[in-house]
Protein backbone atom coordinates (compact mmCIF):
# COMPACT_ATOMS: atom_id res chain seq x y z
CA UNK A 1 0.00 0.00 0.00
CA UNK A 2 2.94 2.34 0.62
CA UNK A 3 3.36 3.10 -3.05
CA UNK A 4 -0.33 3.59 -3.68
CA UNK A 5 -0.43 5.81 -0.63
CA UNK A 6 2.47 7.92 -1.89
CA UNK A 7 0.80 8.24 -5.27
CA UNK A 8 -2.49 9.27 -3.66
CA UNK A 9 -0.78 11.93 -1.58
CA UNK A 10 1.11 13.33 -4.53
CA UNK A 11 -2.01 13.41 -6.67
CA UNK A 12 -3.88 15.27 -3.98
CA UNK A 13 -1.03 17.72 -3.52
CA UNK A 14 -0.60 18.20 -7.25
CA UNK A 15 -3.48 20.66 -7.38
CA UNK A 16 -1.87 22.92 -4.82
CA UNK A 17 1.40 22.88 -6.73
CA UNK A 18 -0.54 23.61 -9.88
CA UNK A 19 -2.22 26.61 -8.27
CA UNK A 20 1.07 27.88 -6.91
CA UNK A 21 2.67 27.48 -10.34
CA UNK A 22 -0.08 29.55 -11.96
CA UNK A 23 0.26 32.23 -9.33
CA UNK A 24 4.00 32.26 -9.82
CA UNK A 25 3.62 32.50 -13.58
CA UNK A 26 1.42 35.53 -13.28
CA UNK A 27 3.28 37.28 -10.53
CA UNK A 28 6.73 37.07 -12.09
CA UNK A 29 8.08 40.42 -13.23
CA UNK A 30 8.72 39.37 -16.83
CA UNK A 31 7.57 36.54 -19.02
CA UNK A 32 11.18 35.35 -19.26
CA UNK A 33 11.45 35.13 -15.51
CA UNK A 34 8.23 33.18 -15.20
CA UNK A 35 9.41 30.70 -17.88
CA UNK A 36 12.75 30.34 -16.16
CA UNK A 37 11.09 29.59 -12.83
CA UNK A 38 8.89 26.93 -14.40
CA UNK A 39 11.71 25.28 -16.32
CA UNK A 40 13.99 25.37 -13.31
CA UNK A 41 11.53 23.76 -10.88
CA UNK A 42 10.52 21.35 -13.63
CA UNK A 43 14.13 20.30 -14.12
CA UNK A 44 14.66 19.78 -10.41
CA UNK A 45 11.53 17.67 -10.13
CA UNK A 46 12.46 15.66 -13.22
CA UNK A 47 15.97 15.00 -11.97
CA UNK A 48 14.74 13.82 -8.60
CA UNK A 49 12.41 11.45 -10.35
CA UNK A 50 15.17 10.37 -12.71
CA UNK A 51 17.64 9.65 -9.91
CA UNK A 52 14.93 7.83 -8.05
CA UNK A 53 14.08 5.56 -10.98
CA UNK A 54 17.72 4.83 -11.81
CA UNK A 55 18.70 3.96 -8.28
CA UNK A 56 15.62 1.78 -8.24
CA UNK A 57 13.77 3.23 -5.33
CA UNK A 58 10.21 2.27 -4.72
CA UNK A 59 9.39 3.13 -8.32
Amino acid at each position, binding site marked *: *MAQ*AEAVMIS*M*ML*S*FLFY*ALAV*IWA*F*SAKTAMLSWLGMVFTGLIAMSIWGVHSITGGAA
Partner: protein
Amino acid sequence: MSFRHSMTWLHTWSGLVLGWLLYFMFVTGSTGYFDEEILRWMQPEIPLQESSISASEFIETAERRLDQVATNATETYIELPLGRSPFFSIWWHEAATPETGARGLWHNEKLNPNTGEPVITRETEGGEFLYRLHYALHYIPGWLAYALTSLAAMFTLVAIISGVIIHRRIFKDFFSFRRHKQRSWLDLHNLFGVLPLPFHLMITYSGLMLLMFSTMLPVPASSYGVGEGLRAIYDEVFTEHDSRSATGISANSMSTVSLYNDALKRSDGGLINYVAIKHPGDKNAVIEMGVLANEGIEQHKPIHYDGVSGELYDPEEDASKHSSAKSFYDTMEILHEGLFARPLLRWLYFLSGLMGAGMMATGSLLWAVNRRKKHTMSGGGVRGLALVDRLNLGTIVGLPIAIAAYFWANRLLPVDLASRAHWEMNSLFIVWGIALLHPFLRWKKTSLKSLWCEQLMFATMVYAFIPVLNAATSEHHLGKALLQGDWVMAGFDLFMLVLAMCFAIAFNKLRRRIPNPSVENSAAGVKV
Protein backbone atom coordinates in the same frame (compact mmCIF):
# COMPACT_ATOMS: atom_id res chain seq x y z
CA MET B 1 3.39 45.36 -12.07
CA SER B 2 3.07 44.85 -8.36
CA PHE B 3 2.14 41.44 -7.00
CA ARG B 4 -1.36 42.57 -6.12
CA HIS B 5 -1.85 44.10 -9.52
CA SER B 6 -0.88 40.93 -11.34
CA MET B 7 -3.13 38.93 -9.04
CA THR B 8 -6.03 41.23 -9.91
CA TRP B 9 -5.37 40.62 -13.56
CA LEU B 10 -5.19 36.87 -13.04
CA HIS B 11 -8.36 36.89 -10.96
CA THR B 12 -10.33 38.87 -13.54
CA TRP B 13 -9.38 36.82 -16.55
CA SER B 14 -9.41 33.40 -14.98
CA GLY B 15 -12.87 34.26 -13.68
CA LEU B 16 -14.22 35.59 -16.94
CA VAL B 17 -12.95 32.83 -19.21
CA LEU B 18 -14.68 30.02 -17.36
CA GLY B 19 -17.19 32.09 -15.41
CA TRP B 20 -20.24 30.82 -17.25
CA LEU B 21 -19.22 27.19 -17.03
CA LEU B 22 -18.61 27.68 -13.32
CA TYR B 23 -21.98 29.34 -12.87
CA PHE B 24 -23.49 26.31 -14.58
CA MET B 25 -21.53 23.96 -12.33
CA PHE B 26 -22.47 25.80 -9.16
CA VAL B 27 -26.18 25.90 -10.03
CA THR B 28 -26.52 22.30 -11.16
CA GLY B 29 -24.24 21.04 -8.40
CA SER B 30 -26.35 22.80 -5.79
CA THR B 31 -29.50 21.13 -7.09
CA GLY B 32 -27.67 17.86 -6.50
CA TYR B 33 -28.06 18.34 -2.77
CA PHE B 34 -31.78 17.79 -3.30
CA ASP B 35 -31.59 15.10 -5.96
CA GLU B 36 -33.86 12.64 -4.16
CA GLU B 37 -36.46 15.28 -3.43
CA ILE B 38 -36.42 16.43 -7.06
CA LEU B 39 -36.80 12.83 -8.25
CA ARG B 40 -39.76 12.40 -5.96
CA TRP B 41 -41.45 15.45 -7.47
CA MET B 42 -40.70 14.14 -10.94
CA GLN B 43 -42.37 10.80 -10.23
CA PRO B 44 -45.80 11.89 -9.07
CA GLU B 45 -47.19 8.38 -9.67
CA ILE B 46 -45.83 7.31 -6.32
CA PRO B 47 -48.62 7.77 -3.82
CA LEU B 48 -48.16 9.30 -0.42
CA GLN B 49 -47.93 6.84 2.43
CA GLU B 50 -51.30 7.28 4.07
CA SER B 51 -51.45 5.00 7.05
CA SER B 52 -48.73 4.43 9.56
CA ILE B 53 -47.03 1.22 8.63
CA SER B 54 -44.36 -0.26 10.82
CA ALA B 55 -40.92 -0.87 9.43
CA SER B 56 -41.25 -4.61 9.91
CA GLU B 57 -44.38 -4.61 7.77
CA PHE B 58 -42.45 -2.73 5.12
CA ILE B 59 -39.66 -5.29 5.24
CA GLU B 60 -42.09 -8.19 4.97
CA THR B 61 -43.88 -6.60 2.03
CA ALA B 62 -40.58 -5.89 0.27
CA GLU B 63 -39.37 -9.45 0.86
CA ARG B 64 -42.56 -10.89 -0.60
CA ARG B 65 -41.99 -8.86 -3.74
CA LEU B 66 -38.30 -9.77 -3.88
CA ASP B 67 -39.22 -13.45 -3.66
CA GLN B 68 -41.25 -13.03 -6.83
CA VAL B 69 -38.87 -10.99 -8.93
CA ALA B 70 -35.38 -11.46 -7.56
CA THR B 71 -35.00 -15.21 -7.57
CA ASN B 72 -31.46 -15.20 -8.91
CA ALA B 73 -30.22 -12.12 -7.13
CA THR B 74 -26.73 -12.05 -5.66
CA GLU B 75 -27.57 -9.04 -3.56
CA THR B 76 -30.83 -7.41 -2.56
CA TYR B 77 -31.50 -4.09 -0.99
CA ILE B 78 -34.63 -2.66 0.63
CA GLU B 79 -34.95 1.09 0.94
CA LEU B 80 -37.39 2.20 3.63
CA PRO B 81 -39.28 5.51 3.44
CA LEU B 82 -37.63 6.81 6.61
CA GLY B 83 -35.21 9.62 7.21
CA ARG B 84 -34.43 11.70 4.15
CA SER B 85 -35.35 9.10 1.57
CA PRO B 86 -38.95 9.55 0.46
CA PHE B 87 -39.06 6.20 -1.34
CA PHE B 88 -40.06 2.67 -0.54
CA SER B 89 -38.17 0.66 -3.06
CA ILE B 90 -36.31 -2.56 -3.67
CA TRP B 91 -33.11 -3.15 -5.58
CA TRP B 92 -31.60 -6.43 -6.66
CA HIS B 93 -28.45 -7.33 -8.45
CA GLU B 94 -28.35 -10.14 -10.92
CA ALA B 95 -24.93 -11.54 -11.65
CA ALA B 96 -23.53 -11.67 -15.13
CA THR B 97 -24.18 -14.95 -16.88
CA PRO B 98 -21.30 -15.61 -19.27
CA GLU B 99 -23.29 -18.26 -21.19
CA THR B 100 -25.96 -15.85 -22.35
CA GLY B 101 -23.63 -12.87 -22.34
CA ALA B 102 -25.91 -10.96 -19.98
CA ARG B 103 -24.14 -8.34 -17.93
CA GLY B 104 -24.56 -8.01 -14.20
CA LEU B 105 -27.28 -5.47 -13.59
CA TRP B 106 -29.00 -3.66 -10.76
CA HIS B 107 -32.77 -3.64 -11.01
CA ASN B 108 -35.00 -1.26 -9.15
CA GLU B 109 -38.69 -1.19 -8.37
CA LYS B 110 -40.55 1.48 -6.48
CA LEU B 111 -43.30 0.04 -4.31
CA ASN B 112 -46.56 1.59 -3.30
CA PRO B 113 -46.06 2.22 0.41
CA ASN B 114 -49.74 1.49 1.11
CA THR B 115 -50.22 -1.74 -0.80
CA GLY B 116 -46.74 -3.03 -1.56
CA GLU B 117 -47.59 -3.29 -5.25
CA PRO B 118 -44.95 -2.00 -7.67
CA VAL B 119 -45.64 1.47 -9.01
CA ILE B 120 -45.06 2.18 -12.66
CA THR B 121 -43.35 5.55 -12.77
CA ARG B 122 -42.63 7.72 -15.75
CA GLU B 123 -39.19 7.43 -17.25
CA THR B 124 -37.08 10.23 -15.85
CA GLU B 125 -33.58 10.85 -14.63
CA GLY B 126 -34.84 13.22 -11.95
CA GLY B 127 -32.44 15.22 -9.87
CA GLU B 128 -29.57 12.91 -10.62
CA PHE B 129 -29.39 14.31 -14.14
CA LEU B 130 -28.97 17.85 -12.82
CA TYR B 131 -26.41 16.62 -10.36
CA ARG B 132 -24.48 14.73 -13.03
CA LEU B 133 -24.41 17.82 -15.22
CA HIS B 134 -22.10 19.59 -12.83
CA TYR B 135 -19.15 17.35 -13.56
CA ALA B 136 -20.07 15.18 -16.54
CA LEU B 137 -21.86 17.86 -18.57
CA HIS B 138 -23.95 16.42 -21.40
CA TYR B 139 -23.64 15.42 -25.06
CA ILE B 140 -19.86 15.12 -24.75
CA PRO B 141 -17.71 12.17 -23.74
CA GLY B 142 -16.87 11.80 -20.07
CA TRP B 143 -13.12 12.37 -20.30
CA LEU B 144 -13.62 15.67 -22.10
CA ALA B 145 -16.24 16.78 -19.59
CA TYR B 146 -14.02 15.85 -16.66
CA ALA B 147 -11.15 17.74 -18.22
CA LEU B 148 -13.31 20.83 -18.76
CA THR B 149 -14.91 20.84 -15.34
CA SER B 150 -11.58 20.16 -13.65
CA LEU B 151 -9.99 22.97 -15.61
CA ALA B 152 -12.79 25.25 -14.45
CA ALA B 153 -12.34 24.10 -10.87
CA MET B 154 -8.60 24.71 -11.17
CA PHE B 155 -9.35 28.25 -12.35
CA THR B 156 -11.62 28.73 -9.35
CA LEU B 157 -8.96 27.51 -6.99
CA VAL B 158 -6.54 30.02 -8.50
CA ALA B 159 -9.21 32.72 -8.54
CA ILE B 160 -10.05 32.09 -4.88
CA ILE B 161 -6.43 32.18 -3.79
CA SER B 162 -5.66 35.27 -5.84
CA GLY B 163 -8.99 36.78 -4.75
CA VAL B 164 -8.02 36.39 -1.12
CA ILE B 165 -4.73 38.07 -1.91
CA ILE B 166 -6.33 41.07 -3.64
CA HIS B 167 -9.15 41.45 -1.20
CA ARG B 168 -7.10 41.15 1.96
CA ARG B 169 -8.84 44.29 3.06
CA ILE B 170 -12.19 42.54 3.23
CA PHE B 171 -10.99 40.52 6.15
CA LYS B 172 -9.58 43.61 7.79
CA ASP B 173 -12.49 45.89 7.04
CA PHE B 174 -15.04 43.23 7.59
CA PHE B 175 -17.66 42.78 4.94
CA SER B 176 -19.72 45.83 4.42
CA PHE B 177 -22.07 46.04 1.57
CA ARG B 178 -22.63 49.54 0.23
CA ARG B 179 -25.90 49.02 -1.50
CA HIS B 180 -26.49 52.54 -2.75
CA LYS B 181 -23.07 53.22 -4.12
CA GLN B 182 -21.49 52.63 -7.48
CA ARG B 183 -19.50 49.73 -6.14
CA SER B 184 -22.39 47.64 -4.94
CA TRP B 185 -21.70 44.94 -7.56
CA LEU B 186 -18.23 44.54 -6.19
CA ASP B 187 -19.51 44.36 -2.65
CA LEU B 188 -22.05 41.74 -3.57
CA HIS B 189 -19.38 39.74 -5.38
CA ASN B 190 -17.14 39.89 -2.32
CA LEU B 191 -19.97 38.91 -0.06
CA PHE B 192 -20.81 35.82 -2.12
CA GLY B 193 -17.16 34.94 -2.32
CA VAL B 194 -16.14 35.56 1.26
CA LEU B 195 -19.10 34.47 3.38
CA PRO B 196 -18.99 30.83 2.34
CA LEU B 197 -15.22 30.85 1.79
CA PRO B 198 -14.68 27.59 3.72
CA PHE B 199 -17.34 25.99 1.52
CA HIS B 200 -15.84 27.35 -1.69
CA LEU B 201 -12.37 26.11 -0.85
CA MET B 202 -13.64 22.72 0.25
CA ILE B 203 -15.92 22.20 -2.72
CA THR B 204 -13.36 23.32 -5.31
CA TYR B 205 -10.51 21.31 -3.91
CA SER B 206 -12.53 18.18 -3.25
CA GLY B 207 -14.11 18.49 -6.68
CA LEU B 208 -10.67 18.50 -8.27
CA MET B 209 -9.67 15.60 -6.11
CA LEU B 210 -12.68 13.48 -7.05
CA LEU B 211 -11.71 13.68 -10.70
CA MET B 212 -7.98 13.29 -10.16
CA PHE B 213 -7.91 9.80 -11.57
CA SER B 214 -8.91 11.25 -14.93
CA THR B 215 -7.02 14.52 -14.81
CA MET B 216 -3.82 13.82 -12.96
CA LEU B 217 -2.97 10.51 -14.61
CA PRO B 218 0.70 11.38 -15.20
CA VAL B 219 1.25 11.24 -11.44
CA PRO B 220 0.39 7.56 -10.97
CA ALA B 221 1.75 6.81 -14.45
CA SER B 222 5.20 7.92 -13.31
CA SER B 223 5.42 5.04 -10.89
CA TYR B 224 2.85 2.55 -12.14
CA GLY B 225 3.35 2.97 -15.86
CA VAL B 226 0.50 3.23 -18.32
CA GLY B 227 -2.25 0.78 -19.23
CA GLU B 228 -2.74 -2.21 -16.94
CA GLY B 229 -0.50 -0.70 -14.27
CA LEU B 230 -2.81 2.28 -13.90
CA ARG B 231 -5.74 -0.02 -13.45
CA ALA B 232 -3.82 -1.61 -10.59
CA ILE B 233 -3.54 1.49 -8.44
CA TYR B 234 -7.17 2.33 -9.03
CA ASP B 235 -8.20 -1.15 -7.93
CA GLU B 236 -5.82 -1.10 -5.01
CA VAL B 237 -7.31 2.11 -3.71
CA PHE B 238 -10.96 1.70 -4.48
CA THR B 239 -11.90 -1.96 -4.62
CA GLU B 240 -13.78 -3.04 -1.58
CA HIS B 241 -12.78 -6.59 -0.95
CA ASP B 242 -15.74 -8.82 -0.56
CA SER B 243 -14.55 -10.77 2.42
CA ARG B 244 -17.27 -13.38 2.13
CA SER B 245 -18.10 -14.79 -1.23
CA ALA B 246 -20.99 -17.07 -1.99
CA THR B 247 -20.38 -20.77 -1.34
CA GLY B 248 -23.11 -22.12 -3.54
CA ILE B 249 -24.44 -24.14 -0.60
CA SER B 250 -27.90 -22.97 0.23
CA ALA B 251 -28.99 -22.42 3.78
CA ASN B 252 -31.98 -20.94 5.50
CA SER B 253 -31.50 -17.30 6.38
CA MET B 254 -32.52 -15.71 9.63
CA SER B 255 -35.70 -13.69 9.55
CA THR B 256 -34.77 -10.20 8.45
CA VAL B 257 -37.42 -8.64 10.65
CA SER B 258 -36.02 -10.13 13.85
CA LEU B 259 -32.54 -8.93 12.91
CA TYR B 260 -34.02 -5.54 12.15
CA ASN B 261 -35.51 -5.38 15.62
CA ASP B 262 -32.22 -6.46 17.12
CA ALA B 263 -30.36 -3.76 15.20
CA LEU B 264 -32.91 -1.20 16.29
CA LYS B 265 -32.12 -2.02 19.91
CA ARG B 266 -28.40 -1.69 19.29
CA SER B 267 -28.74 1.51 17.26
CA ASP B 268 -29.47 3.69 20.25
CA GLY B 269 -32.52 5.39 18.82
CA GLY B 270 -31.11 5.73 15.30
CA LEU B 271 -33.34 5.10 12.30
CA ILE B 272 -32.63 2.23 9.95
CA ASN B 273 -33.39 3.22 6.42
CA TYR B 274 -32.12 0.31 4.39
CA VAL B 275 -31.67 -3.42 4.70
CA ALA B 276 -29.14 -5.09 2.42
CA ILE B 277 -28.69 -8.82 2.00
CA LYS B 278 -25.57 -10.19 0.34
CA HIS B 279 -25.74 -13.68 -1.13
CA PRO B 280 -29.34 -14.27 -0.04
CA GLY B 281 -30.15 -17.89 0.63
CA ASP B 282 -26.47 -18.84 0.71
CA LYS B 283 -24.53 -20.30 3.64
CA ASN B 284 -22.41 -17.17 3.61
CA ALA B 285 -25.27 -14.68 3.53
CA VAL B 286 -24.62 -11.33 5.21
CA ILE B 287 -27.42 -9.04 6.32
CA GLU B 288 -26.64 -5.38 6.70
CA MET B 289 -28.83 -2.88 8.56
CA GLY B 290 -28.35 0.73 7.45
CA VAL B 291 -28.48 2.59 10.74
CA LEU B 292 -28.47 6.34 10.13
CA ALA B 293 -25.57 7.81 12.04
CA ASN B 294 -26.37 10.31 14.74
CA GLU B 295 -22.94 11.83 14.75
CA GLY B 296 -19.92 12.20 12.55
CA ILE B 297 -19.88 12.71 8.82
CA GLU B 298 -20.67 9.18 7.79
CA GLN B 299 -24.26 8.88 6.65
CA HIS B 300 -24.70 5.36 7.98
CA LYS B 301 -23.22 3.25 10.69
CA PRO B 302 -24.28 -0.13 9.36
CA ILE B 303 -24.62 -3.18 11.56
CA HIS B 304 -23.76 -6.52 9.91
CA TYR B 305 -25.14 -9.92 10.76
CA ASP B 306 -24.26 -13.37 9.65
CA GLY B 307 -27.35 -14.25 7.64
CA VAL B 308 -27.59 -17.86 8.83
CA SER B 309 -26.66 -17.73 12.49
CA GLY B 310 -27.79 -14.17 13.13
CA GLU B 311 -24.54 -13.45 14.97
CA LEU B 312 -23.03 -10.02 14.70
CA TYR B 313 -20.51 -10.10 11.95
CA ASP B 314 -17.62 -7.72 11.57
CA PRO B 315 -16.69 -7.43 7.92
CA GLU B 316 -12.94 -7.37 7.62
CA GLU B 317 -12.00 -3.76 7.22
CA ASP B 318 -10.43 -3.05 3.91
CA ALA B 319 -6.72 -2.39 4.45
CA SER B 320 -6.86 0.77 2.37
CA LYS B 321 -9.40 2.21 4.76
CA HIS B 322 -6.64 2.56 7.32
CA SER B 323 -4.28 4.49 5.11
CA SER B 324 -4.30 8.15 5.98
CA ALA B 325 -4.24 9.25 2.33
CA LYS B 326 -7.31 7.21 1.56
CA SER B 327 -9.14 8.42 4.64
CA PHE B 328 -8.35 12.03 3.73
CA TYR B 329 -9.70 11.31 0.26
CA ASP B 330 -12.81 9.73 1.75
CA THR B 331 -13.38 12.66 4.11
CA MET B 332 -13.15 15.15 1.28
CA GLU B 333 -15.54 13.06 -0.80
CA ILE B 334 -18.01 12.88 2.07
CA LEU B 335 -17.78 16.63 2.61
CA HIS B 336 -18.24 17.31 -1.09
CA GLU B 337 -21.32 15.15 -1.42
CA GLY B 338 -22.85 16.17 1.88
CA LEU B 339 -24.92 13.00 2.08
CA PHE B 340 -24.72 13.06 5.86
CA ALA B 341 -26.29 16.51 6.11
CA ARG B 342 -29.56 16.77 7.99
CA PRO B 343 -32.11 19.35 6.71
CA LEU B 344 -30.49 22.44 8.25
CA LEU B 345 -27.00 21.62 7.03
CA ARG B 346 -28.38 20.48 3.69
CA TRP B 347 -30.04 23.84 3.14
CA LEU B 348 -26.83 25.58 4.13
CA TYR B 349 -24.92 23.44 1.64
CA PHE B 350 -27.46 24.40 -0.99
CA LEU B 351 -27.35 28.10 -0.11
CA SER B 352 -23.55 28.11 -0.09
CA GLY B 353 -23.64 26.55 -3.54
CA LEU B 354 -26.07 29.21 -4.74
CA MET B 355 -23.82 31.87 -3.26
CA GLY B 356 -21.07 30.36 -5.38
CA ALA B 357 -23.32 30.76 -8.42
CA GLY B 358 -24.01 34.32 -7.29
CA MET B 359 -20.30 34.94 -7.00
CA MET B 360 -19.76 33.84 -10.61
CA ALA B 361 -22.77 35.81 -11.86
CA THR B 362 -21.83 39.04 -10.11
CA GLY B 363 -18.22 38.54 -11.18
CA SER B 364 -19.18 38.36 -14.84
CA LEU B 365 -21.53 41.34 -14.47
CA LEU B 366 -18.78 43.24 -12.71
CA TRP B 367 -16.44 42.62 -15.59
CA ALA B 368 -19.01 44.08 -17.97
CA VAL B 369 -19.71 47.06 -15.72
CA ASN B 370 -16.02 47.90 -15.40
CA ARG B 371 -15.43 47.47 -19.11
CA ARG B 372 -18.33 49.76 -19.86
CA LYS B 373 -16.91 52.43 -17.60
CA LYS B 374 -13.60 52.19 -19.41
CA HIS B 375 -15.30 52.42 -22.80
CA THR B 376 -17.40 55.43 -21.92
CA MET B 377 -14.23 57.15 -20.81
CA SER B 378 -12.14 56.20 -23.82
CA GLY B 379 -14.95 55.78 -26.36
CA GLY B 380 -13.37 52.58 -27.67
CA GLY B 381 -15.04 49.65 -29.43
CA VAL B 382 -17.60 47.63 -27.54
CA ARG B 383 -17.79 44.42 -29.54
CA GLY B 384 -16.26 42.17 -26.88
CA LEU B 385 -18.34 43.86 -24.24
CA ALA B 386 -21.55 43.36 -26.19
CA LEU B 387 -20.79 39.67 -26.55
CA VAL B 388 -20.15 39.31 -22.81
CA ASP B 389 -23.33 41.24 -22.05
CA ARG B 390 -25.45 38.91 -24.15
CA LEU B 391 -23.86 35.75 -22.84
CA ASN B 392 -24.22 37.05 -19.29
CA LEU B 393 -27.95 37.44 -19.73
CA GLY B 394 -28.42 34.16 -21.58
CA THR B 395 -26.53 32.29 -18.88
CA ILE B 396 -27.44 34.01 -15.65
CA VAL B 397 -31.19 34.08 -16.26
CA GLY B 398 -31.28 31.61 -19.14
CA LEU B 399 -30.00 28.64 -17.14
CA PRO B 400 -32.66 28.87 -14.41
CA ILE B 401 -35.30 29.13 -17.13
CA ALA B 402 -33.85 26.02 -18.77
CA ILE B 403 -33.96 24.10 -15.49
CA ALA B 404 -37.59 25.10 -15.09
CA ALA B 405 -38.16 23.80 -18.61
CA TYR B 406 -36.77 20.43 -17.47
CA PHE B 407 -39.45 20.30 -14.76
CA TRP B 408 -42.15 21.40 -17.20
CA ALA B 409 -41.07 18.77 -19.71
CA ASN B 410 -41.28 16.16 -16.96
CA ARG B 411 -44.97 16.83 -16.57
CA LEU B 412 -45.95 17.75 -20.12
CA LEU B 413 -44.21 15.14 -22.28
CA PRO B 414 -46.44 12.13 -22.96
CA VAL B 415 -45.73 9.34 -20.49
CA ASP B 416 -45.28 6.73 -23.21
CA LEU B 417 -42.93 8.80 -25.37
CA ALA B 418 -39.98 6.77 -26.60
CA SER B 419 -36.76 7.64 -24.75
CA ARG B 420 -38.72 10.08 -22.70
CA ALA B 421 -35.97 10.76 -20.17
CA HIS B 422 -33.75 11.91 -23.01
CA TRP B 423 -36.36 14.33 -24.24
CA GLU B 424 -36.67 15.81 -20.78
CA MET B 425 -32.95 16.45 -20.83
CA ASN B 426 -33.02 17.76 -24.39
CA SER B 427 -35.74 20.21 -23.38
CA LEU B 428 -33.38 21.76 -20.89
CA PHE B 429 -30.77 22.40 -23.54
CA ILE B 430 -33.23 23.48 -26.23
CA VAL B 431 -34.73 26.09 -23.94
CA TRP B 432 -31.32 27.22 -22.77
CA GLY B 433 -30.26 27.58 -26.40
CA ILE B 434 -33.26 29.80 -27.05
CA ALA B 435 -32.52 31.87 -23.96
CA LEU B 436 -28.94 32.33 -25.16
CA LEU B 437 -30.07 33.30 -28.65
CA HIS B 438 -32.78 35.66 -27.48
CA PRO B 439 -30.48 38.59 -26.61
CA PHE B 440 -28.64 38.18 -29.90
CA LEU B 441 -31.83 38.19 -31.97
CA ARG B 442 -33.42 41.19 -30.31
CA TRP B 443 -30.24 43.15 -29.76
CA LYS B 444 -30.74 45.85 -32.40
CA LYS B 445 -34.23 46.85 -31.33
CA THR B 446 -34.09 46.64 -27.57
CA SER B 447 -31.89 47.93 -24.82
CA LEU B 448 -30.03 45.49 -22.63
CA LYS B 449 -32.21 46.54 -19.75
CA SER B 450 -35.43 45.54 -21.47
CA LEU B 451 -33.87 42.27 -22.57
CA TRP B 452 -33.06 41.53 -18.93
CA CYS B 453 -36.57 42.53 -17.97
CA GLU B 454 -38.03 40.19 -20.55
CA GLN B 455 -36.05 37.19 -19.38
CA LEU B 456 -36.57 37.95 -15.69
CA MET B 457 -40.28 38.28 -16.32
CA PHE B 458 -40.30 34.99 -18.17
CA ALA B 459 -38.32 33.28 -15.41
CA THR B 460 -40.80 34.57 -12.84
CA MET B 461 -43.67 33.11 -14.82
CA VAL B 462 -42.18 29.68 -15.46
CA TYR B 463 -41.32 29.22 -11.81
CA ALA B 464 -44.52 30.71 -10.42
CA PHE B 465 -46.62 28.33 -12.49
CA ILE B 466 -44.78 25.15 -11.53
CA PRO B 467 -47.06 24.56 -8.50
CA VAL B 468 -50.03 25.10 -10.82
CA LEU B 469 -48.55 22.62 -13.26
CA ASN B 470 -48.07 20.18 -10.43
CA ALA B 471 -51.68 20.59 -9.34
CA ALA B 472 -52.91 20.08 -12.89
CA THR B 473 -50.83 17.00 -13.68
CA SER B 474 -50.64 15.12 -10.42
CA GLU B 475 -52.59 14.33 -7.28
CA HIS B 476 -50.07 16.07 -5.08
CA HIS B 477 -51.08 19.71 -5.28
CA LEU B 478 -49.60 22.14 -2.80
CA GLY B 479 -52.69 22.43 -0.59
CA LYS B 480 -53.03 18.68 -0.25
CA ALA B 481 -49.32 18.19 0.34
CA LEU B 482 -49.33 20.83 3.07
CA LEU B 483 -52.39 19.35 4.77
CA GLN B 484 -50.91 15.87 4.71
CA GLY B 485 -47.53 17.05 5.88
CA ASP B 486 -45.90 15.77 2.70
CA TRP B 487 -42.89 18.07 3.03
CA VAL B 488 -40.94 16.80 0.08
CA MET B 489 -43.72 17.68 -2.39
CA ALA B 490 -44.78 20.85 -0.60
CA GLY B 491 -41.18 21.94 -0.15
CA PHE B 492 -40.49 21.62 -3.85
CA ASP B 493 -43.53 23.70 -4.82
CA LEU B 494 -42.86 26.29 -2.15
CA PHE B 495 -39.25 26.66 -3.18
CA MET B 496 -40.35 27.20 -6.78
CA LEU B 497 -42.55 30.03 -5.52
CA VAL B 498 -39.62 31.49 -3.59
CA LEU B 499 -37.52 31.41 -6.74
CA ALA B 500 -40.31 33.07 -8.69
CA MET B 501 -40.43 35.76 -6.04
CA CYS B 502 -36.69 36.35 -6.29
CA PHE B 503 -36.94 36.79 -10.04
CA ALA B 504 -39.92 39.10 -9.59
CA ILE B 505 -37.99 41.26 -7.13
CA ALA B 506 -35.05 41.43 -9.51
CA PHE B 507 -37.39 42.33 -12.34
CA ASN B 508 -39.03 45.04 -10.31
CA LYS B 509 -35.77 46.57 -9.14
CA LEU B 510 -34.38 46.60 -12.64
CA ARG B 511 -37.49 48.07 -14.20
CA ARG B 512 -37.57 50.97 -11.79
CA ARG B 513 -33.91 51.70 -12.20
CA ILE B 514 -33.22 54.97 -14.01
CA PRO B 515 -31.00 54.19 -16.93
CA ASN B 516 -27.76 56.01 -17.37
CA PRO B 517 -28.40 58.04 -20.53
CA SER B 518 -24.81 58.10 -21.72
CA VAL B 519 -24.59 54.35 -22.07
CA GLU B 520 -28.24 53.70 -22.76
CA ASN B 521 -28.04 51.61 -25.86
CA SER B 522 -24.61 50.19 -25.49
CA ALA B 523 -26.31 48.16 -22.85
CA ALA B 524 -27.07 49.98 -19.66
CA GLY B 525 -25.37 48.53 -16.64
CA VAL B 526 -27.68 45.98 -15.23
CA LYS B 527 -28.43 45.95 -11.61
CA VAL B 528 -30.49 43.36 -9.89
